[in-house]
């Protein structure tokens, strides 16, 4: 109720089991960033095997040991299962424990109620439960590395029957996923109710900042797409723990043994449908909040309204809806007939249209601007071409005919990494730099920010650009050693280049890590609105107290009233009526 009351809380209630959306948002942000770093570290080890197959992993090889790294005559080398486990867990950690918790759990929790002028989330306790469910899911996933047989190693897609017969790590993966899904459901219910019911007076739907729209659509995706995966997870758990045969057909022969003790009669394709029913919307769960952040940062730093705000909103809603009916384009190679393949090719082409509209609106917003090259703006601007490359390279994968050659090759890896790594991750960095002053009252160092941006920008392209060529050459993903195959050996040089870029990219994150912690304590102190922004979050004190706003804000105008002619400053806050 009162501020004083909140300050009376013991430490563990205030910062650990907190119900304050800002604390939860920061908890999410920090946990998710740790997971992102872990996910990146995992892939750095994989990249050594890819670049120098079968050779001794220097320095850390000996430390890893266990089920991931085995000792051979050439030294400490990744095992096949270890490689697959790293691959599966890299995907899982990056998506479910890194990007989504950061984009939705972190930024959504911290920024959304502030932008809505709300004192907190609609259900603060559910919000806390959501974070701790996520945390528990993360712990289960991490613990799976230490069980017999190592972590899940059937790919992040966990296709049965392989996943049905995999080691214990897969069971833990499934339990972890159930926890993460629960967390997402709690979070998304909270976001939707907060957005619709707890917004400030005067903040009608078309006065929402674009970020709010992005989070709202994302929440609906999480709410409706995750349950089928939960169902699939339960079914796979039953297969693994109760010997059912949901995904196992009759007459399986595993390692030369006829499986007579299972009933059979299931279908491996069933899993793929249930899985991709989630996993395609999940792509938009990864990208929409990023678009939201980029929209905010661009509007703020171009000092003009976003061009085509309504088109942006409708395109986002349409994108969200369409994302539910394109999923089978991940399954073109399962032997699909003409009708279905045409349907899914068509929906896939249709879904590219709103993406094009969004990108067009963003780039036309630059026209007539007065661009401030702040660090968040650099990341947001870099996002645009990277996202464009990611989007364009989706085209050949969305058409069955070209997909025949490119399906499951590095081209796919390049494509979706361009969307989520230089795409979403750059947007998330923009968000961290942009809202850091709101969370701490201090700005992150500009110099270190630029030192972070430029090498990251160069090396991230160094990692993923070669992948299009590697994929074009036909090299398949999830290959422990691509030189085992003739076409893989031919482009091994590019793989080496990608690996070195990845390691340099890892080093390029050091300025950020230093900057982040240094700026919490030593960063330049700034006021409530250092970016001269218009949206409501900037009119709460920095950092905002429990309950956020000193007086409940009332909204008078749209979200991006920058450089309005005839006004005395170049920005008109939402909670201040425009001068006549």
């Amino acid at each position, binding site marked *: 109720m009162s501020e004083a009351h909140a300050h009376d809380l013991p430490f563990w209630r205030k910062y650990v089991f907190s119900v304050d959306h800002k604390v939860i948002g920061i908890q999410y942000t920090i946990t998710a960033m740790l997971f992102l770093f872990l996910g990146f570290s995992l892939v750095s080890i994989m990249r050594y095997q890819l670049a120098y197959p079968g050779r001794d992993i220097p320095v850390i090889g000996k430390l890893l040991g266990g089920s991931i790294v085995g000792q051979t005559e050439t030294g400490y080398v990744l095992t096949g299962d270890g490689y697959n486990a790293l691959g599966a867990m890299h995907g899982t950690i990056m998506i479910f424990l890194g990007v989504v918790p950061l984009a939705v759990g972190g930024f959504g929790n911290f920024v959304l109620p502030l932008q809505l002028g709300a004192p907190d989330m609609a259900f603060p306790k559910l919000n806390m439960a959501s974070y701790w469910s996520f945390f528990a899911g993360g712990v289960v996933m991490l613990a799976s590395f230490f069980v017999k047989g190592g972590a899940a190693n059937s790919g992040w897609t966990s296709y049965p029957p392989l996943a049905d017969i995999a080691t214990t790590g897969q069971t833990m993966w499934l339990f972890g996923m159930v926890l993460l899904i629960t967390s997402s459901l709690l979070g998304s219910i909270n976001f939707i109710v907060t957005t619709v019911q707890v917004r400030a007076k005067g903040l009608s739907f078309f006065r929402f900042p674009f970020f709010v729209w992005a989070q709202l659509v994302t929440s609906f995706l999480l709410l*409706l797409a995750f349950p089928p995966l939960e169902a699939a997870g339960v079914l796979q758990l039953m297969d693994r723990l109760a010997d059912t045969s949901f995904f196992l057909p009759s*007459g399986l022969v595993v390692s030369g043994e006829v499986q007579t003790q299972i009933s059979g009669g299931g279908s491996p*394709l069933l899993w793929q449908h249930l899985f991709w029913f989630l996993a395609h919307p999940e792509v938009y769960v990864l990208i929409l909040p990023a678009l939201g952040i980029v929209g905010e940062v661009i509007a703020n730093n171009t000092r003009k309204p976003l061009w085509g705000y309504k088109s942006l909103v409708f395109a986002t809603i349409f994108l969200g809806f369409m994302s539910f009916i394109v999923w089978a384009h991940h399954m073109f190679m399962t032997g699909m*007939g003409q009708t279905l393949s045409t349907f899914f090719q068509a929906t896939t082409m249709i879904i590219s249209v709103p993406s094009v509209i969004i990108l067009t609106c963003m780039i036309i917003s630059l026209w007539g601007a007065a661009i401030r090259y702040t660090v968040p703006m650099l990341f947001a601007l870099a996002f645009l071409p990277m996202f464009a490359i990611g989007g364009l390279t989706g085209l050949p994968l969305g058409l069955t005919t070209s997909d025949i050659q490119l399906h499951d090759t590095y081209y796919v890896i390049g494509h979706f990494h361009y969307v989520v790594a230089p795409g979403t991750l750059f947007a998330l960095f923009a968000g961290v730099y942009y809202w850091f002053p709101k969370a701490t009252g201090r700005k992150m160092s500009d110099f270190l920010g630029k030192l972070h941006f430029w090498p990251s920008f160069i090396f991230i392209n160094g990692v993923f650009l070669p992948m299009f060529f590697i994929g074009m050459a036909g090299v398949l993903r999830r290959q422990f050693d691509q030189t085992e195959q003739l076409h893989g050996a031919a482009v091994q040089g590019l793989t080496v280049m990608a690996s070195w870029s990845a390691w340099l990219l890892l080093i390029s994150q050091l300025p950020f890590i230093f900057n982040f912690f240094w700026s919490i304590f030593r960063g330049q102190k700034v006021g409530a609105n250092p970016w001269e922004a218009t949206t409501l979050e900037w009119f709460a004190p920095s950092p905002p107290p429990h309950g956020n706003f000193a007086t409940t804000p009332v909204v008078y105008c749209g979200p991006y009233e920058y450089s309005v002619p005839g006004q005395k400053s170049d920005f008109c806050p939402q909670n201040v009526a425009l001068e006549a």
Partner: protein
Amino acid sequence: MASSSEEVRKHLKTYYIVFGSLAVLTIVTVTVGFMHLPIAVAVAVAMLIACLKGSLVASFFMHLVSERGIIFWILALCVFFFLMLLLVPSLTFFEPDYSDFVDGVSGSGR
């Protein structure tokens, strides 16, 4: 939404009627179930009765009749996605006709 206690009192009778209808429909569906109708008819009748019962529960017990549109739209979205989830996999399962082999011998046919 019924708010005052008088309005609620008027609803009490509805609740008992709905309860009675649900019980009767349950008996009907069981009886029909034992008549061994052709499978298509049996499915149609059973699903029809189930939908009827379901809408009674949703409309009156869950007061959906007196809610605003927003819930309908969200539920309609769910129903649409559910139908997609039902229809699309069945098409991938059954559309391709591969009965074109030289001889019907196969190690593990479906």
